């Protein structure tokens, strides 16, 4: 079923602001209608929680500091089924603790938004330093097969825009949506434009309809809320359309898992977003996301100035990955270069999509990607001679 769409005035006065990334994400959530936040303090995501405590007081909504991140994700799921637009913000260790709940949310088709301000992992790692080490975990971290949507903001403006968009996608597809920021973007200060009005998409609700199955080709069933007399049966066990546990029925299980996967995969063209820079004629194509894409774009500018046909493809959604857009651009490029702030996680995904070798420029030093690092790697590969 399709979401209902309304256009509302921004509750936060529109205009230009100078904000930190974490704060912009909090404001984006408020503009998107977030009215529930459950969280647990963690560097470098605490600023977002501290901001939204005040914002929810100001604009109406519930805030609760839970006893851990497991409690946070579970409280969000309960709140979402009670009708709230729920979110949390966390970082690596907290994100790991949330994995079981994320699988539950995917399986019960519960809309929620998680902002992951990634830090250098694994384990406690470097709590105050950036990394992009959770980009595969967000897709594969919980057990079993499922699909989610994940955005990768590269600017403070996108922290605002993509967090706001995350609520809409969560509601439209009844799926957990992730904003995979990192410490560099989370603590960056930049100009942010807050618009006059925003679109708010709401979960489709049809009284009496089955909440866990649909014949609608988009695969998104109606989602009622607690307290409406629908006598909801919600379970993390395999369930039929009405929510009854069917833990021994192979056809119910395969139908359910396939629908949950396909409702996102079939809509990938509508969900996937990307941006391309200087890709009309391109020999060296960078594929970079998040903070690394800023460094890559700087390198592209410099290479173009020196006459090298360099370009940048920036996936804005990491999951689903904008495969078609990448395929059409990459066909003309001689080299595909993937700088990222982890040990080459998305480079493998890009190789899978393109069926050709990708030159990975991985970095796990707890720092933001620098243009010099990319240049040095290009020289080491003898790709440029500048």
């Amino acid at each position: 079923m399709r979401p209902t769409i309304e256009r509302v005035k921004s509750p936060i006065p529109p205009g230009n602001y100078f904000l930190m990334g974490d704060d912009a994400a909090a404001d984006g959530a408020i503009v998107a209608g977030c009215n529930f936040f459950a969280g647990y303090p963690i560097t470098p995501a605490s600023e977002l929680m501290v901001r939204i405590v005040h914002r929810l007081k100001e604009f109406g909504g519930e805030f609760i500091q839970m006893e851990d991140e497991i409690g946070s994700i579970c409280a969000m799921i309960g709140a979402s089924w009670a009708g709230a637009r729920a979110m949390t913000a966390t970082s690596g260790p907290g994100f790991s603790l949330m994995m079981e709940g994320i699988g539950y949310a995917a399986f019960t088709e519960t809309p929620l938004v998680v902002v992951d301000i990634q830090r250098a992992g694994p384990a406690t790692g470097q709590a105050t330093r950036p990394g992009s080490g959770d980009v595969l975990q967000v897709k594969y971290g919980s057990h079993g097969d499922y699909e989610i949507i994940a955005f990768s903001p590269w600017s403070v403006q996108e922290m605002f825009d993509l967090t706001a968009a995350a609520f809409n996608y969560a509601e439209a597809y009844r799926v957990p949506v992730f904003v995979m920021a990192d410490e560099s973007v989370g603590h960056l200060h930049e100009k942010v434009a807050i618009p006059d009005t925003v679109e708010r998409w709401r979960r489709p609700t049809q009284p009496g309809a089955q909440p866990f199955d649909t014949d609608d080709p988009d695969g998104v069933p109606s989602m009622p809320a607690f307290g409406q007399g629908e006598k909801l049966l919600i379970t993390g066990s395999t369930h039929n359309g009405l929510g009854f546990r069917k833990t021994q029925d192979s056809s119910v299980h395969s139908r359910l898992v396939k629908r949950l996967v396909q409702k996102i995969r079939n809509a990938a063209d509508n969900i996937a977003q990307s941006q391309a820079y200087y890709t009309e004629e391109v020999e060296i194509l960078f594929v970079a996301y998040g903070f690394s894409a800023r460094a890559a774009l700087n390198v592209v500018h410099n290479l173009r100035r020196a006459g090298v046909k360099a370009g940048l493809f920036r996936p804005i959604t990491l999951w689903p990955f904008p495969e078609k857009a990448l395929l059409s651009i990459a066909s003309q490029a001689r080299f595909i270069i993937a700088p990222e702030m982890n040990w080459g996680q998305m480079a493998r995904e890009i190789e899978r999509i393109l069926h050709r070798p990708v030159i990975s420029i991985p970095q796990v030093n707890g720092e933001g990607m620098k243009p010099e690092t990319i240049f040095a790697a290009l020289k080491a590969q003898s790709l440029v001679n500048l």
Partner: protein
Amino acid sequence: MSRTLLPYLRLEAFPTPFCSGCGHGILLGAVVRAVNKAGLDWNKLLFASGIGCAAWIPSPHFAADTLHTLHGRPIAFGTGAYLANKSLKVIVISGDGDLSAIGGNHLIHAARRNLPLTVICANNSIYGMTGGQAAPTTPCDAFTQTTPWAGGEPPFDLCRLVEGAGAKYIARHTVFQIRQLINVMSKALVFDGFSFIEVISPCPTHFGKLNAISSLGDFRARLKEIYIDKRRLDKLTASERQNKFPTGELTAL
């Protein structure tokens, strides 16, 4: 069960999956009666449960909103649901392993937070669904699959645990004390704050088998020795009180 209570059950979900002699069916009926005694609107009830035999008491048997959650987490789910819609009455029904082992942290923090959740812990002193392993509530002298020579760890007194964490309404009864149980549950359901009911429920299939309790009558006799009315227990000497637990309304602030 009285016909007037049948509309509150999903009859298509019956018979229950509980083993013969299990106390959870009695508890199921007691909850329905207590909800009606308290005069609550079934359309505004949310039953949250975790994983384990007891979690199947509300889900799918009760004709109300039911949320069958992750293992140990029903209180956290219920906390979020209540905050998002305060017209809901959230009733958590789950087992001793779910609520006090894997979910122990959520239990004590919910007691401290004092939101008006009612937590009903069906305590059978063992992990039933997984085949009879030791729980934090298993008596030291009991045999389980994971304490095959007995001599396990000291158990929790769950009522004292939540009292220490700040719970304001606490009661304990066995399923053999059905009138008292319905009475304290109905009071807990309208209590303005966090309330906790520990319900002692026999598990003949696993606890009974592993501990040579051959009949439900024997089980009842054993529970009667361990779970004693708090006024009677107070009169016993300290050594007589060893390994015994009080029943009744233990805290009502």
